[in-house]
């Protein structure tokens, strides 16, 4: 008994120790806050950062589907604009068949790209036309070359970009259409705020200064095969849709698999509930 009592006593002492330590930290922090006069110093990044615009996507929602026309347009934007700096290394040419291209189109497109290869005669590193099984080649031979060509800001691989950012599809579309002049209000409120010399003001980017120069600048920069008018917003939305597909090619299949699973489970759960009720009916009775 006395031993148990001592466990409680030690417990209380240990508890008081932790409580005092954390309250000490609290008081130190509170003191600092009182001295500074505010909880959190306001920053331009905090005040002027904007959440992505909410666009309507064909793949949104539990019944979402790809708009293959849009994916093809987005692919064209990637191919003609983004691919100059951004790789797409987890996507193979063969995957493009999911966008509605047939085998020969995929083969022809793959062959139009040069991928790293080996000279069969000399063994030297060289390039060769791509095959459907090859992956999209990187525009730079390595990370150092990528950094050197871009003021030390390595253009990220785009395969997973919409999954690697919060609200990714909206983020990509917003970012591509979000370039503007530094707002006058910002300059007034934060006179010290300065973009880095290579930065471009974009409120959708976390620190407001995006190293990438506006890639989509003029309507008609890309000519869409389906006749859709290539406004900057249209191109941005289409390439965001394409990059949503590259990040999660199984998105539609996933949702389509989900429905039968949930419907079956609902049915099975109702059965399980009725069966449980039946079995328990007798046990709930007071007299039998």
């Amino acid at each position, binding site marked *: 008994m006395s031993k148990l009592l001592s466990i409680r006593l030690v417990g209380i002492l240990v508890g008081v120790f932790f409580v005092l330590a954390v309250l000490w930290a609290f008081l130190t922090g509170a003191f600092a806050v009182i001295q500074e006069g505010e909880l959190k110093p306001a920053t331009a990044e905090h005040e002027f950062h904007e959440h992505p615009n909410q666009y309507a996507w064909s793949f949104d929602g539990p019944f979402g589907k790809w708009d293959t026309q849009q994916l093809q347009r987005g692919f064209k934007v990637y191919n003609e604009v983004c691919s100059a700096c951004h790789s797409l290394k987890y996507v*193979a040419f*063969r995957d493009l068949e999911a966008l509605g291209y047939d085998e020969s189109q995929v083969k022809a497109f793959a062959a139009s790209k040069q991928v790293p290869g080996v000279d069969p005669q000399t063994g030297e590193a060289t390039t060769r036309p791509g095959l*459907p*099984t090859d992956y999209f080649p990187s525009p730079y031979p390595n990370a150092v070359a990528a950094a050197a060509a871009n003021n030390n800001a390595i253009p990220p691989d785009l395969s997973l970009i919409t999954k690697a950012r919060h609200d990714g599809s909206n983020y990509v579309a917003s970012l591509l259409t979000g370039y503007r002049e530094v707002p006058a209000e910002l300059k007034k409120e934060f006179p010290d705020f300065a973009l880095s010399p290579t930065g471009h003001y974009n409120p959708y980017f976390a620190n407001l200064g995006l190293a990438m120069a506006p890639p989509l600048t003029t309507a008609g920069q890309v000519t869409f095969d389906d006749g859709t008018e290539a406004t900057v917003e249209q191109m941005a939305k289409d390439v965001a849709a394409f990059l949503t597909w590259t990040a999660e090619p199984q998105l539609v299949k996933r949702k389509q698999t989900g429905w039968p699973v949930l419907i*079956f*489970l609902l*049915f*099975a759960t109702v*059965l*399980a509930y*009725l*069966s449980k009720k*039946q*079995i*328990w*009916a*007798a*046990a709930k*009775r*007071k*007299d*039998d």
Partner: protein
Amino acid sequence: MADTAATATPETAGETDTGIRRRDFLDIAAVSAAGIGGLAVVYPLVSQMAPSKDVLAASSTEVDVASIEPGMAIKAIFRKQPLFVRRLTPQEIQMAEGVAVGSLRDPQTLEERTKEGHKDMLVTMGVCTHLGCVPLGAAVGEPRGEFGGYFCPCHGSHYDTAGRIRKGPAPKNLEVPEYEFTSDTVIQVG
């Protein structure tokens, strides 16, 4: 009262009686649903072990056969397995055609094993049909066995100049994969 509840419940609700009542039907349905669900889960669990998309996509190979001299062979790779492409000399063609097909373990003529107009171009898998070793004879200086074709050193199977099994434990001729000439000098396998 407590006693009756205790003794009565297990009998009325616990054990299955003979004859199907509503209760039994529900239980059977619920257990069957669980069973069906369990079976449905087996499908992805099994099919995940089948070749993945990248493996399936890589299953065609192009081979340039222009540089193969008569009597020589090259090794290529098809589905991560060796592929032998051999240009036969006229004597080798003669040897292959001089055999009575009926006497073979796996009767096939050279015509059946080559493409029309390319009787000198023997394309086979470099995989012994016995237990999957790579036969010798494709590279310069390797033994070609008693019949001048290929020889598998693992268990002593001899193949002739048409890649047909002639002696040893292998049950079948060297497999001829599906292929076609996309031009006079290029074949596409698979």
